[in-house]
């Protein structure tokens, strides 16, 4: 309790004392010291959106699990020979559907190829197609979406309708049709997926840009004499980046699945390229008798996609202000 002020007692008991509202109470000056008005806090560590996000992400186990898995997948994709000495294309029909043995832990498939080696080498195609497509989609989508959102009016109408047209065509259907007529390799698969996959990112970007472009700092830059393209590039896009990154991370998994689906259908990568989708397709003949032939490539595909999706979730929690709990 503070010391009793001279104007009257401020004790809690009732009785013959005056009503509380008649008492002029004031706190002891030492108890509630007066601070200078609005003094900057120089002691706290400087932070930014990215630092905040990092601080939030680094304590989550899900982040570390998915990060380790992603790094592993990327290492496998770049340096498959670090993980196996067996050539995936050197097959001996004598080993057809052979079980696991020393040096061949997963056994052999129908052609007598080593399943472990094929699973390891299959990562490259998936990761390359997934990464290339994501980069392409993000670039095209964010540029078109950014321009549409920022300039508005007829520019927005035209770009958004073009996006709607591509959005209306199912990604796989379009890929099936176009892959029939063009040369099939990692690059063309990525290209086709990019051409039909960008509208989603464009829409997200357009929305994010719309919410940023009316900010006062944008008006302030206009009053500064900054040109419109410069404002878009310097102020608007960096502030719209968070949702784009989130969608990009999640869709990387989706594109890996799309590549596998195309290869499974026999219209993705040619059989000469080792890929999980192709191997899953080849394994279906023996699902009942030799399930391990299907299990390993499918499991690798599942884990890879899962790790990218988990990473996307963690990144969204860290970057999306609405999902942030502080």
């Amino acid at each position: 309790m503070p010391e009793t002020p001279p104007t009257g007692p401020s004790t809690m008991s009732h009785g013959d004392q005056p009503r509380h509202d008649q008492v002029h109470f004031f706190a002891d000056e030492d108890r509630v010291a007066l601070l200078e008005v609005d003094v900057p806090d120089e002691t706290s560590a400087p932070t930014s959106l990215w630092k905040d996000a990092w601080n939030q992400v680094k304590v989550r186990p899900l982040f570390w699990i998915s990060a380790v898995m992603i790094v592993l997948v990327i290492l496998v994709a770049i340096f498959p020979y670090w993980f196996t000495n067996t050539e995936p294309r050197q097959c001996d029909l004598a080993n057809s559907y052979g079980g696991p043995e020393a040096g061949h832990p997963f056994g052999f498939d129908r052609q007598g190829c080593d399943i472990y080696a094929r699973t390891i080498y299959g990562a490259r195609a998936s990761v390359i197609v997934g990464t290339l497509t994501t980069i392409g989609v993000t670039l095209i989508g964010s540029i078109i979406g950014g321009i549409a959102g920022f300039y508005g009016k007829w520019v927005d109408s035209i770009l958004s309708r073009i996006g709607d047209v591509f959005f209306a065509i199912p990604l796989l259907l379009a890929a099936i049709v176009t892959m029939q007529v063009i040369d099939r390799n990692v690059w063309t698969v990525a290209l086709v997926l990019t051409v039909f996959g960008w509208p989603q990112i464009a829409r997200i970007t357009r929305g994010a840009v719309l919410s940023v472009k009316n900010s006062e700092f944008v008006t302030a830059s206009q009053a500064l004499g900054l040109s419109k393209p410069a404002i878009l590039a310097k102020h608007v896009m960096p502030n719209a980046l968070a949702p784009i990154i989130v969608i990009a991370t999640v869709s990387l998994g989706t594109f890996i699945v799309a590549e596998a689906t195309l290869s499974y259908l026999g219209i993705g990568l040619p059989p000469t390229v080792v890929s999980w989708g192709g191997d899953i397709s080849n394994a279906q003949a023996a699902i009942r008798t030799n399930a391990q032939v299907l299990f390993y490539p499918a499991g690798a595909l599942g884990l890879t996609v899962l790790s990218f999706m988990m990473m996307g979730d963690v990144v969204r929690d860290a970057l999306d202000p609405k999902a942030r709990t502080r």
Partner: protein
Amino acid sequence: MSTESSSQFVASDADQPLLEVRDLEVSFSTSSGEVKAVKGADLTVYPGQTVAIVGESGSGKSTSAHAVIGLLPENGSVTGGTIKFAGRDITHLKPKEAEALRGSEIGLVPQDPMSNLNPVWRIGYQVKESLKANNVKTSRAGRQQLSGALVSEELTDHKDDDLYLGSDAKKTLIAELTTALGQSPDAEGKLADADERLAVGSSTRAEVRVIMAELGLPDAENRVNSLVTGGSIDDRVAGLLAEAGLKDAERRARQYPHEFSGGMRQRALIAIGLAARPQLLIADEPTSALDVTVQRTILDHLAGLTSELGTAVLFITHDLGLAAERAEHLIVMYRGNVVESGPARQILDAPKHPYTQRLVSSAPSLASRRIQSEHAAAVASGTETGDSSSAPADNIIVAKDLTKVFRLPGKRPGSHTNFTAVDSISFELERGKTLALVGESGSGKSTAANMALNLLEPTSGSITFDGVDVSTLGKKELFKFRRRVQPIFQNPYGSLDPMFSIYRSIEEPLRVHKVGDAKSREARVRELLDLVSLPQSMMRRFPNELSGGQRQRVAIARALALKPEVIVCDEAVSALDVLVQAQILTLLNDLQAEFGLSYLFITHDLAVVRQIADSVCVMQNGKIVEAAATDEVFDNPKQAYTRELLAAIPGASLSIGGGMAS
């Protein structure tokens, strides 16, 4: 049952506190550990009394009130002290018990009228919901039972207050009155009078009896007693809305929130807060988002309504003038503590705690004068020469017949309607002086500011800057013009790019205009930070680490970077706490004296105008209704609208804030 018993208990002893909070402590668990928001607060509200909690943002005033009504956020909890309501300890109620208490015994009028009504439901439905949630007897069976009992038995007066006039009963009564009055000369006037005074769902049986007897309905008592047997729930909803001051309430109840203005929404929220006739109403900054004139009518109405109903009000506000005007008893909170409490007058006249003293002395009000800081005076005495007063007025900005018409989409596709935001206004800004454009929301003042900044093209009329018509500027000249006129905006959270460090934010204008090299730019940024009294170490930080006032300082530093001649301040201090606001205004004043800046000051707050402006243009509906020197406008307002604005300044009638003048 519990409602009745407790209300009788309170009514019998007005000297017993209705709400008694002792040593209240509230903590929030955050990622950086436990944070104490309220540290031992005491507050007492007696029945029927209005008590105001005053404090700046973060002082714990809203948190205390939310603890009382059991609406703390999930990570907050009461960690000490007691809350007693009507003699009952409600500190740690179970969720069910707290629900029963809320609405029926403690009502709440929330802060933001825009987000506190559900946009998909009609207003009437939302009022009805609050009646139903609190079990106000409105079910058909309950009403029939009650009215049956009342008609048959001898009627006693104390039950009359539970019975409201129904819409059918009103029609019948008016019809009977029409026949009774017949051809008498004043029949028409009396009927109109009856129609106005008989409020469906709001007039009680006793009131209706008095009204009808006065107007000359024969055998008024018996007729009224048999007819007024309680209205339907829809009648009651209309009555509640009418009580809250909504005209044409029955029709309004069928509308949706988007059809209401901010003031009307706040009235609907007051109707909801008072629907179940609580004994205590907590009003959390109920009018902070509204224009001053709207604020005044709503608070007047609320005061009348609560005193009529005998409801106690706990009023939360950051505005000392408003609190002192509206409450008998003030509680001043600072950093989670109650630093002073007592009768409003006593606190204003003799503030004891240094924080209260500071608050009282810097409260902007009618009594305050233009800021005269020592710094400004020193600079002025050094530069002022004898002939400056005799020289002809040197106007840096002259706006002539400025008009802006916006095209809005019409009802049919392809059609459009025109909306005139700014209607042929003219003003002059003298070099080195401050001109304020004052007006309420929608008066066109911000549109005018954007045209002065050359961000919006006028539909007609012209703006002359330093003798040159700005509409004739080519691309290069426009770029040069940008250097000479800079804006400062209202929202301290929106005016800085969150992705830019403070250094980059302040440096950007220099880089865009290619001033100096990297090294000289850094020196200039350091100089600018000194100018706005921010430590140079803030350079590496990001806007989210700064308080609103500090961000506004950064915005000022950024605006000053290019050594402009004119700064357009669009509500630059409106979002800040009073003390911070005074600090920023003093800073702006010092800078003006030092660099001879001219300010075009856009604001809705006349009290601020008096502190900073040399001359004022009062805007209403896109037109300038009054333009004169500041003192002239304040001491001798010519227009009714200006007088209304002046009268609506909170605390206008009280002599606080005199510290600035003396």
